[in-house]
């Protein structure tokens, strides 16, 4: 895959009509050049990629060594297809081979050639129908894959062992089911005749069990080839005739999908062109009116991109185009419109904030790619570590998931509400509540993505979408600014934006419905609740076509912040998300693990018990999916360390085994999250600190109050220490001399002379000790001048302190 022509740097692509008309001179386009070359695309074209560096040419039907990013060792893949992509500039679809070393010996078919572990042909591969897209940059080199007969004919030595392989069987993608012996050469022949048949054939062979249909009578490859051959012949006749006509016709004859892609491609390009022109227009305008800047449409575009990742290029472009058009809608008129809306008195203050034309980006900070070094590091890692890495990535909350298990009902309900509202062009307000980490935002985003998908298929009317997060705004009023910027493309001050919005929503106008997701709504609170009120109120205007999805933690928020009269009028549709149940959390984890690559799945296994344990623990407390995932990820980290330690000591052969993540790892991770560091902290405190705490405890016991004055604590400390002489505690201190005691140590006015009986009234650095305890969050103290009359109280549980002090020999006697 290559996302854009730029990614193809270093590669050249050649469109060759290899199969149909080999004598035609191939059309050549250099990647760095204009994309226009894509337009001249033939019906039965085949793309050939050529690496400029070493003239390596690859095309469909080749076998290549692929080093995927993040993988430890290169894998071998069979290129099924190279085409101009839908989402990407060029799609390379491959089916993977599995090396015999990666398959458990026990799983190998019980055939004589696999009878002994030592006699395996190390260069044997198994073909799978595990299709995947790869990146051009991942291709390392071409390799030879031979059938068994061919393989026997050649000599394998050091020179070719790394790039010559043999295939005689296929297997399922898990490496557990195997086909009978097949002839690879014939397979490739089949491929060249018809790639789809080839895929079907191998799939039918490898995943037989999945096909529930009654077994078809076995078709020999050869027969199949013949069948296709004859079909082809009959089909091919007509195209050939048309092929001879001029090249412009070729576009018309392109059949099925190819046509669509090309069409879209063209559209995109046209728009690109237009956009550029517009940019120029805008630039000119800006020279005239420096105070007015167009909002940065790049930014909008980027935002859109984030929210609708799954959308393909064309609709996105078109929305951008609409925005452009809107923005272009003569700045003069929009400004005069804005002026007309804003009252004259405000006019003086009315100014359009300048929008920065280009946003800074961290991309510039990113390090240059150090290819050689990078791969070197990767190669040092073995496959198991690799698998650990991948499993952690999949368990990270930022991982993009394809579905949200356990939220199907909510999804459907939100979807229908929104769909209906968009369809009828009515305003609507949806209120979603629930505790953190239970998929509120994720579900809404998913709904929007689906709706946008269906807009593409013209099943739903087009709509705009905006996301506002209450906690990502510094002040609630900024919400107006953001919303108005989305609508008009101009940045104005929040106060003005509010007026403009009010006007905008209350006037009849032909506009697209606008869906606004207000995340963390409860943070958009102002003194008079204006912002929240407005966002609830606007949808109720007949003309607004505004759909607000409000997301917050508390269920009764509208009642709490809005008067009853208003909230009853709003007609909120409410929905409460419940915490994930144990089963649902398990599903979430399983869903993410299912996305692991085949290799990693075999290497590191998160046992069912372990994931159950984690989900049970979390569902009992919060049902927070984030928490569950974090725990699992941490458990994997712990297991990884364990694994590394083992490997370093034993030096066994971990390559062959898979590592299991067990309940013990999970419970370790959970303990880390719930264990508070308090008791450990208390244990390490010096004696004087403990004495203060002990005195506070005693005082509490005597007075029966939670808060005691520091004066009482001071007296208590002194008395306890005077009364108390335990042999154990003074043993260490006696090393300093016969007269030494804790009393001397802490109170003596001259610690270097214990015979002197002058005592201070407080222990040494008393103030500092109390302050530090307060700073550590163990006690809180009243902030008043003087010492004796300030009140102190414990902020951690009494029991915790008592249990720690009891364990301490030096002080336990005083308790």
């Amino acid at each position: 895959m290559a996302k854009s022509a730029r990614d193809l740097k270093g590669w050249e692509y050649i469109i060759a009509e290899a199969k149909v008309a080999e004598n035609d001179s191939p059309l050549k386009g250099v990647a760095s050049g204009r994309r226009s070359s894509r337009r001249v695309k033939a019906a039965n074209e085949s793309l050939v990629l050529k690496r400029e560096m070493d003239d390596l040419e690859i095309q469909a039907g080749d076998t290549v060594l692929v080093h995927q990013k993040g993988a430890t060792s290169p894998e071998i893949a069979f290129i099924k297809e190279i085409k101009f992509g839908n989402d990407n500039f060029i799609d390379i679809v491959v089916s993977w081979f599995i090396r015999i070393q990666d398959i458990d010996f026990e799983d190998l078919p019980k055939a004589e050639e696999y009878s002994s572990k030592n006699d395996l042909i190390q260069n044997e591969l198994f073909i799978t129908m595990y299709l995947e897209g790869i990146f051009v940059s991942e291709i390392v080199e071409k390799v030879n894959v031979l059938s068994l007969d061919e393989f026997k004919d050649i000599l394998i030595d050091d020179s070719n062992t790394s790039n010559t392989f043999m295939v005689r069987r296929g297997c399922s993608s898990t490496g557990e089911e195997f086909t009978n012996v097949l002839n690879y050469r014939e397979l490739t022949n089949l491929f060249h005749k018809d790639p789809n048949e080839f895929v079907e054939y191998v799939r039918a062979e490898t995943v037989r069990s999945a096909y529930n249909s009654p077994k078809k009578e076995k078709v020999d490859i050869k027969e199949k080839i013949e069948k296709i051959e004859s079909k082809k012949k009959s089909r091919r006749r007509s195209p050939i005739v048309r092929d001879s006509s001029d090249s412009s016709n070729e576009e018309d004859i392109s059949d099925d999908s190819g046509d669509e892609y090309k069409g879209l491609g063209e559209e995109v390009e046209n728009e690109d062109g237009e956009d550029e022109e517009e940019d120029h227009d805008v630039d000119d305008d800006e020279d005239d009116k420096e105070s007015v800047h167009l909002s940065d449409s790049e930014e909008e575009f980027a935002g859109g991109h984030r929210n609708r990742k799954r959308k393909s290029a064309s609709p996105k472009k078109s929305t951008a185009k609409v925005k452009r058009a809107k923005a272009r809608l003569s700045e003069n008129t929009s400004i005069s419109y804005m002026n007309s809306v804003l009252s004259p008195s405000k006019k003086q203050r009315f100014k359009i904030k300048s929008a920065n034309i280009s946003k800074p980006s961290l991309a510039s900070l990113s390090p240059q790619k150090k290819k050689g070094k990078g791969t070197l590091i990767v190669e040092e890692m073995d496959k198991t570590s690799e698998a650990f890495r991948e499993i952690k990535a999949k368990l990270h909350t930022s991982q993009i998931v394809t579905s949200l298990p356990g939220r199907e009902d909510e999804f459907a309900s939100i979807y229908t509400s929104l769909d209906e509202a968009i369809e009828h062009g009515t305003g609507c307000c949806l209120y979603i509540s629930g505790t953190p980490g239970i998929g509120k935002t994720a579900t809404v985003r998913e709904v929007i993505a689906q709706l946008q998908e269906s807009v593409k298929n013209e099943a739903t009317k087009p709509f705009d979408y905006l996301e506002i997060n209450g906690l990502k705004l510094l002040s609630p009023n900024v919400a107006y600014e953001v919303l108005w910027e989305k609508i008009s493309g101009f940045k104005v001050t929040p106060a003005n934006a509010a007026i403009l919005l009010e006007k905008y929503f209350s006037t009849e106008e032909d506009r697209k419905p606008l869906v606004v997701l207000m995340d963390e709504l409860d943070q958009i609170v102002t003194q008079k609740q204006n912002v929240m009120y407005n966002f609830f109120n606007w949808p109720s205007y007949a003309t607004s076509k505004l759909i607000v999805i409000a997301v917050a933690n508390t269920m009764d928020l509208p009642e709490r912040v809005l008067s009853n009269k208003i909230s009853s009028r709003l007609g909120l549709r409410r929905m409460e998300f419940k915490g994930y149940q144990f089963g649902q959390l398990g599903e979430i984890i399983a869903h993410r693990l299912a996305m692991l690559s085949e290799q990693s799945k075999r290497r590191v296994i998160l046992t069912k018990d372990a994931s159950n344990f984690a989900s049970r623990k979390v569902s009992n407390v919060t049902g927070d999916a984030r928490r569950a995932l974090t725990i699992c990820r941490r458990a994997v980290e712990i297991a990884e360390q364990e694994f590394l330690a083992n490997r370093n000591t034993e030096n066994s052969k971990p390559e062959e085994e898979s590592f299991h993540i067990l309940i013990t790892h999970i419970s370790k991770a959970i303990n880390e999250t719930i264990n508070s560091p308090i008791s450990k902290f208390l244990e390490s405190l010096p004696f004087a600190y403990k004495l203060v705490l002990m005195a506070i405890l005693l005082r509490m016991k005597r007075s029966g109050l939670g808060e005691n004055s520091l004066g009482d604590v001071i007296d208590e400390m002194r008395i306890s220490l005077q009364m108390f002489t335990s042999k154990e505690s003074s043993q260490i201190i006696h090393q300093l001399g016969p007269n030494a005691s804790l009393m001397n140590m802490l109170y003596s006015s001259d610690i270097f002379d214990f015979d002197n009986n002058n005592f201070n009234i407080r222990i040494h650095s008393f103030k500092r000790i109390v302050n530090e305890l307060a700073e550590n969050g163990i006690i809180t103290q009243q902030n008043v001048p003087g010492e004796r009359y300030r009140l102190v109280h414990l902020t951690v549980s009494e029991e915790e302190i008592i249990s720690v002090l009891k364990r301490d020999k030096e002080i336990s006697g005083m308790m």
Partner: protein
Amino acid sequence: MGKFDECQVSSGDVRRVRDQIMHQLSGGFANFGHSKQLKEKFNELYMLFEHTVNDKEGHSALLIGPRSTGKTTIINKALEELESKYSGQFLTIRLNATIHSDDGIALREIARQLDEEVKRINAFQVELEYQLDNTNFEQRSINDTFANILLSLDNNMHSEQDEASTTISIIFVIEEFEKFTNNNKQTLLYNLFDLSQSSSTAVCVLGVSTKVTTRELLERRVRSRFSQRIITTSKSSSLEEFWTDAKLGLLFDESLFNSLDNAEYGKLWNSYFEFLFNECAQVTNFRKLVFQNYYTVKNIKDFYNSCMFAVSQIHSSAPFPSDMVFSKYLNSQLSNCVQGIVRSLSTSELLLTIAAARWVEKYELQAINFNLAYAEYKSMMKNYNLNTTSGSTGLDSKMISNFRINHKLFSSKILRTCWESLYKLGLLLDSGGITTNNEGHIITNANLNKNLIIEENKMVQLDITLDEISTFMDDHNAFKRLTKL
């Protein structure tokens, strides 16, 4: 002590050793790599950073521990090591809540540091095709700045996902972390943790705090986004451990022995402190110093401070710090503020203080005004004068009664001045200035002790008790018996 006395040392050597050791004591020395406990924490932290930088994972953690237990030391060390290994692949943003006291300032600081970094890299690549326009993260409007930061961090690499391996990781180190939780909304923390959870840019948020209960201070939403991971550092748990850690700062590095004219001096220097602590026949001041520190604050930096004076005193005729000098620092410390004030009082002020303390003791009331104190003073002094004479009889009594040493009973006018000076010294405190609101939070009156004139009947509190006065008064002080009721 014999071998230490015999050692002949050149003045150059003494200077070299003194400079080096003073440098170490004053903080130019990371007490690291020897302490096992810190080493473990360091490894944990380093792993965390490495996962962020190398594997591009988002992480968050809290580093909690009392002051001067090496929190910042291990962070710096970890970042240093990271820099040497993954130079240019990450950038560090440091915030300190005492400096960046609210979210707005903190955001501006983040923007500024990002800008700085961009500039630095630009200057670096000026010959290359990279030429960035003059856009900054920091904008005039704080909202724009905020939006900019979020956008670039959150969104950064979505457009170039296939090059994800080249994105830069960002490590946030936030010191005094708990202060950011004071803010009700915790906007900054929410966003930072959210980035660490959901951003495609690898973001590591490390909060540094002294408060053990920091995690409980996080708001629910913020907590859900936080990984719950806490790394703790703690003070040494035993005296031996404390001593092994503490002495490291006093030792002269063996690799520097060669720079000395007499390498023997270096060796002796290093054994000298062990000798003072353990092997000396009598109990040394140095040993007491270590014990005192261990029992009260257990703070190595404090210990170094108290050694500094002694080390600074060495010269070629006495190349090792004398044990006697080690007591200097502690003895010159102010033991307690109130105690110091009382010691400095004039006689009449002291008597008035005692009278007030007596009254408080008698009636078990906390507040007192001048009139009450003066009445107590009068009766107390009358009693005192009576008692000094009553014991004597006969001729002697006559003799003495003629020379009766009566302590003068000062008029209330004079003592009013004393009362005022006690108030100004802070021995008397405004009472009733303290109220608590419904939630139990204490509201203090900001104008406490700001009044210059104190009225006769104004109720005040005395910050010392009779018992305490008697404790530190010398036995031969004539007024000591007044402190007994």
